[in-house]
């Protein structure tokens, strides 16, 4: 028998610190100094990896300097390339959002404020590593120099849409970029990435896999499936959680972020979890290099939590003013990833406001030109193909019942 005197139980419902009409409040977010964490060997036993799961790996300090053990010491050219990709991603997002408002596409999703995650990671990976992204990693494709025109055509479902209008815009597929077809079902790509990595290991290949989910998606079964299979078979995979604080209208506490960090989930599986300043290009790059080296040397998988903020609406169907304070993003303590890398480059004398200005002009012009080309193939409403094409690819070959249905459709 329990000796405790029966107390009245209470049901706890997590709540964000501020709601619409209130002033944004991020006072509960601790921001440790940059450079204070050491960079351990990639085969460090996970019981010694605690600090990295609960702390925050940061490289860029208040004076825009790259400091500490995790500084990946990238060349100025690499940094400028990163800046360019991030800015291009943002310019692209703005353009596509406008297209949606203009009715050229039914739907769009921006990654504003999160550009460092996808861009730095794509650059830190080998080009033949396989990516299993969510819908908010368009930066991976930008950083792999995938033609924006191709993405636009997928968004417009026009005749150049390689997925033939099958999916909702932004659910890209780009096999030649080693970028897996994005599913509308959250998290399903996570165990798939682990399976792909298991196959690569079985084949004594050298390619590793990486997968991305959001903070909210960590609650799905496939998150647990992926971590379990990754640890059991020590699959060469990097499992990323992009904690942008929100899952549509639910803040990260609803996903279980109130009691612990998402990076710390890894520890219980005997895996290292790295919690990284997701708006710090250098920190994301460094953490990814560490995890990639670990995977490639058969030292095991890694979970990386990218601590960032979803500065834009969830999608063009969403209006955040219904659930969070207006321009909460302005108060985000970790700043903007593009601004921060720009300031770093300027601080080390490798960049200037003028160059940045010029770069913006150049990229907007590029996107404008790409858009012109993409639109020339048609936008929402222009059919990507013959309607009969919808019956293709259900199976490799059309079974009789689909042939019958296709004929029925065409006889209408």
């Amino acid at each position, binding site marked *: 028998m329990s000796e405790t005197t029966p107390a009245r139980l209470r*049901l706890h*419902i997590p*709540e964000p610190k501020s*709601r619409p009409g209130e002033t944004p409040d991020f006072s509960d977010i601790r921001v440790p100094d940059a450079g204070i964490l050491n960079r351990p060997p990639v085969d460090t036993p996970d019981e010694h990896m605690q600090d990295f799961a609960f702390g925050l790996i940061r490289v860029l300090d208040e004076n825009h300097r790259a400091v500490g053990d995790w500084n990946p010491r990238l060349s100025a050219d690499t940094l400028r390339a990163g800046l360019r990709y991030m800015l291009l991603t943002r310019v692209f997002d703005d353009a596509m959002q406008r297209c949606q408002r203009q009715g050229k596409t*039914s*739907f769009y999703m921006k990654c504003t404020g999160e550009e460092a995650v996808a861009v730095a990671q794509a650059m830190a990976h080998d080009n033949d590593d396989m990516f299993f992204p969510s819908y908010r990693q368009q930066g991976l494709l930008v950083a792999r120099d995938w033609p924006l025109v191709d993405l636009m055509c997928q968004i417009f*479902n026009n005749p150049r*849409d390689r997925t*033939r*209008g*099958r*999916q*909702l*815009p932004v*659910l890209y597929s780009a096999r030649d970029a080693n970028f897996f077809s994005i*599913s*509308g*079902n*959250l998290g399903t790509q996570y165990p798939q990435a682990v399976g792909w990595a298991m196959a690569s290991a079985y084949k004594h290949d050298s390619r590793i896999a990486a997968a991305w989910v959001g903070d*909210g*998606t960590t*609650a*799905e*079964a496939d998150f647990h499936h992926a971590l379990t299979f990754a640890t059991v078979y020590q699959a060469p995979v990097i499992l990323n959680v992009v904690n942008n604080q929100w*899952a*549509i*209208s*639910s803040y990260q506490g*609803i*996903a*279980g972020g109130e009691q612990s960090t998402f990076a710390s989930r890894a520890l219980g599986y005997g895996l290292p979890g790295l919690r990284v300043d997701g708006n710090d290009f250098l920190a994301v790059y460094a953490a990814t290099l560490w995890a990639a080296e670990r995977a490639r040397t058969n030292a095991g998988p890694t979970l990386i939590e990218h601590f960032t903020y979803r500065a834009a609406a969830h999608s063009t*169907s969403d209006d955040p003013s*219904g*659930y969070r304070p207006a321009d909460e993003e302005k108060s985000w303590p970790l700043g903007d990833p593009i601004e921060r890398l720009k300031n770093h480059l300027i601080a080390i004398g490798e960049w200037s406001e003028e160059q940045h200005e010029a770069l913006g002009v150049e990229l907007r012009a590029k996107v404008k030109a790409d858009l012109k080309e993409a639109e020339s193939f048609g936008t929402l409403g222009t*059919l*990507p*193909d013959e*309607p009969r094409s*919808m*019956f293709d690819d*259900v199976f490799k070959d059309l079974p009789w*019942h*689909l042939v019958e*249905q296709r004929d029925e*459709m065409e006889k*209408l």
Partner: protein
Amino acid sequence: MARMNMIQAINSALDITMGRDPNVLVFGEDVGYFGGVFRCTAGLQKKYGKTRCFDTPISEGGLLGAAVGMGVYGLRPVAEIQFADYIYPAFDQLVSELARLRHRSAGEFTAPVTVRSPCGGGIFGGQTHSQSPEGVFTHVCGLKTVMPSNPFDAKGLLIAAIEDDDPVVFFEPKRIYNGPFDGHHDKPLQPWATHPMGEVPDDYYSIPLGKANVVREGKDCTILAYGTMVHVALAGTEEAHVDAEVIDLRTLLPLDIDTIVQSVQKTGRCLILHEATKTSGFGAELMSLVQEHCFWHLEAPIVRVTGWDTPYPHAFEWHYFPGPKRLVKALQTLMEN
């Protein structure tokens, strides 16, 4: 009498049942403070408090599992699955647990859970925001399956579903949340305000599960439909100049077989209309039941008009959607035979 669209009618049903019974809890992804991505739970958290209407983690299996446990405790949980396409992660808790609990425990344990979920296409949702999986649930013993076609029914049926002591899967055709849709996507949207079934009493009423509704009497043939397709059926009937009897099933399981059989025995002809894919869809069961019960009255083969056996394609939505054009053609074949 107020004028409500389907969202408001569903909201009203939830409000009224929560007001009458403190054991009714409403939860799901984004349903709490925000009030749901389709706004069906708007205002309920403010009115009834955070512990009665709240957000859940994005874990359909988890929220259904928790709902079963709450039901076992003695509550009446109403869980929202944000899109019917995302009900599959909860499939095991639904079919292996919720549906079987009463039987396997010989009545010792039950869970009167209602699962609400928007279904169907016609909203440019692509293959993962457009599915109609209702047929699968009618194959699972122990679940009741409901799909309303208008605000008045939505409120009455949802109240009945929540009060029902068996688990109910309640599908809401999202295409008709704001107004009836007859398949003519080029026509401007008609709001529910201008539709008779948009007249919804403010207070409590319920519509018994298992009772179909003859929405149009006719003698040439019988059309079996539910959800959005009821409106397509009515439009197609006019356009084909066929005097069809249109039956809105409302509840798929248990099915109102008497109303169906009476009608088909009268008309001798039957057409089945649904948006879900054809093979092994609920239309197959309907066709089988009509064949079994009315064989000797049939003057022509029963006809199915359904979604094609492909995923719901984003770009070809209107080639996929079984609209009036297909229905008219099928009605003509049906009558020629």
